[in-house]
């Protein structure tokens, strides 16, 4: 850092002019001296003789302090009317970065059966009711949007697709995590079954408890994203989202919607998700 103290900069040059004028006033009686010591302190805080005048130090210090003033911009976060949009921007940037970090082929870690959290210790989390009282006999998944074969799909139709089982980590936005065993059909297989336009941007779901969620298409097509009808090799229990839920090991817990009733492929989101619309991250990829 040594050059800093003698390096002139623009601001100092500008100020130098006024100093020069002061110097000119002083110069008259001491011409000889000036010749012997051609120090021009005008644009250097430190003079050649290694000293600095007290006035110069004060003005340089003041200017250096002013250079920190851009920090005051952060004060915008304290202004109520600006705070919310700024934080939204920040969260939006995080979501954008999350999207960039997502890799289609990258699999979430899977775990041995011995590492799986016991079923009774897998938390039941919902925003409203544990059991919205789905009548299984009448249940269908209503498919719509950018698909070739819209309509009501029965669970048995979904079960005709290849079944996959995986031990993956379920991470809640609150901070807790469990390793669960999930089984079901790949959402990507189901999207082929219904003839979905996979160039569309989103897959949205609605639930029997009025919960709703959305997924970016890349995540919907991820090989570990399941339309899940089994946990721990047993049919889903009501409290865990029977008869059909999402299991997305690359996403945060609140994306794993339960008690699915509708699925739509779309380019436009009217609303993002129950928690997202209250201010949580829209993408929240793990």
């Amino acid at each position, binding site marked *: *850092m*040594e050059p*800093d*103290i003698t390096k002139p900069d623009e601001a100092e040059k500008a100020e130098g002019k006024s100093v020069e004028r002061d110097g000119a006033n*002083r110069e008259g*009686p001491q011409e000889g*001296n000036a010749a012997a010591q051609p120090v021009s302190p005008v644009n250097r*805080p430190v003079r050649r003789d*290694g*000293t*600095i*005048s*007290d*006035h110069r*130090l004060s003005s*340089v*210090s*003041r200017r*250096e*302090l002013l*250079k*920190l003033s*851009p*920090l005051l911009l*952060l004060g915008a*976060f304290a202004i109520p009317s600006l705070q919310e949009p*700024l*934080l939204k*921007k*920040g*969260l939006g940037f*995080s979501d954008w970065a*999350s999207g960039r*970090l997502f890799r289609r082929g*990258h699999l*979430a*870690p899977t775990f041995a059966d011995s590492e799986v*959290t016991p079923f*009774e*210790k*897998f*938390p039941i989390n919902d925003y409203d009711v544990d059991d919205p009282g789905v009548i299984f006999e009448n249940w269908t998944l209503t498919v719509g949007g950018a698909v070739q074969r819209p309509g009501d799909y029965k669970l048995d139709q979904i079960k005709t697709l290849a079944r996959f089982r995986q031990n993956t*980590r379920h*991470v*809640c*936005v*609150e*901070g*807790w*995590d*469990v390793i669960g065993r999930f089984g079901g059909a790949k959402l990507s297989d189901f999207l082929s079954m219904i003839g979905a336009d996979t160039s569309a941007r989103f897959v949205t779901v609605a639930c029997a408890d009025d919960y709703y969620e959305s997924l970016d298409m890349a995540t919907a097509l991820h090989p570990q994203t399941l339309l899940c009808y089994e946990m721990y090799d047993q049919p889903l229990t009501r409290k865990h989202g029977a008869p059909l839920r999402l299991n997305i*090991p*690359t996403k945060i817990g609140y994306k794993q919607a339960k008690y699915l009733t509708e699925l739509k492929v779309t380019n436009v989101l009217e609303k993002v998700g129950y*928690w997202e619309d*209250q*201010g*949580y*991250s829209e993408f929240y*990829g*793990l």
Partner: protein
Amino acid sequence: MSGSVVEIVRIRGEETEAIGRAAYEHPLVVRLCHWLNAISLFVLVGSGLQIFRAFPSFGAKIPQKDLLNWPKAFAIGGWLGGALQWHLTFMWIYIATGLVYLGYQIFSGNYRQVLFTHRDIPGVWPMVRHYFFFGPKPEVREAYNPLQKHAYTTAIGLGVLSVLTGLAIWKPVQLSWLAWLMGGFHWARLWHFLVMWAILAFVFGHLVMVILHGWNNFVSMLTGWKKDPEY
């Protein structure tokens, strides 16, 4: 180096009178980074503790045993979603500040002012003896003594760790190798928490020393110039 001490002179007509000494200790980039870091750290700790309130434990969810119930008054964000907004916004400021700081220090060579190296080891004990056991004060030769260099070097390392542990929690799948290094998501969360307390311990000691070292020392982090340095 930081040892460029100059005389402060008062000029009266033809007379110049030495009235003190000064040294330019902190380049603008370092000062900007210092205060940006202080602000973002404040927000990250406050919002982090609010996030922690949502699940104040490092054990299982069932049964849940709370480690400590952090008071809401000492947290930022008001609720989990709000705290996450603050955290996920200021983490970028924190990371960017850290990268600019490290880049500047390395490429300008200014890192020599704070980096603790093997050459500082012999000076550690005399300094400890002075601070804690009323030993004689070792001669001050540069801006930071060996203990200070040790503290600042450790703090910078903790800053890097805070980012790495945080990234492991934020992206335990895409950065699964990072989470794996820390023993998985569950442990990464604990490391992140512990690194925060280590940083807070540094900040506490730092503030105590700033108060003890007086006004000129504090001003130097604002203007860059320290009046009457000890070296």
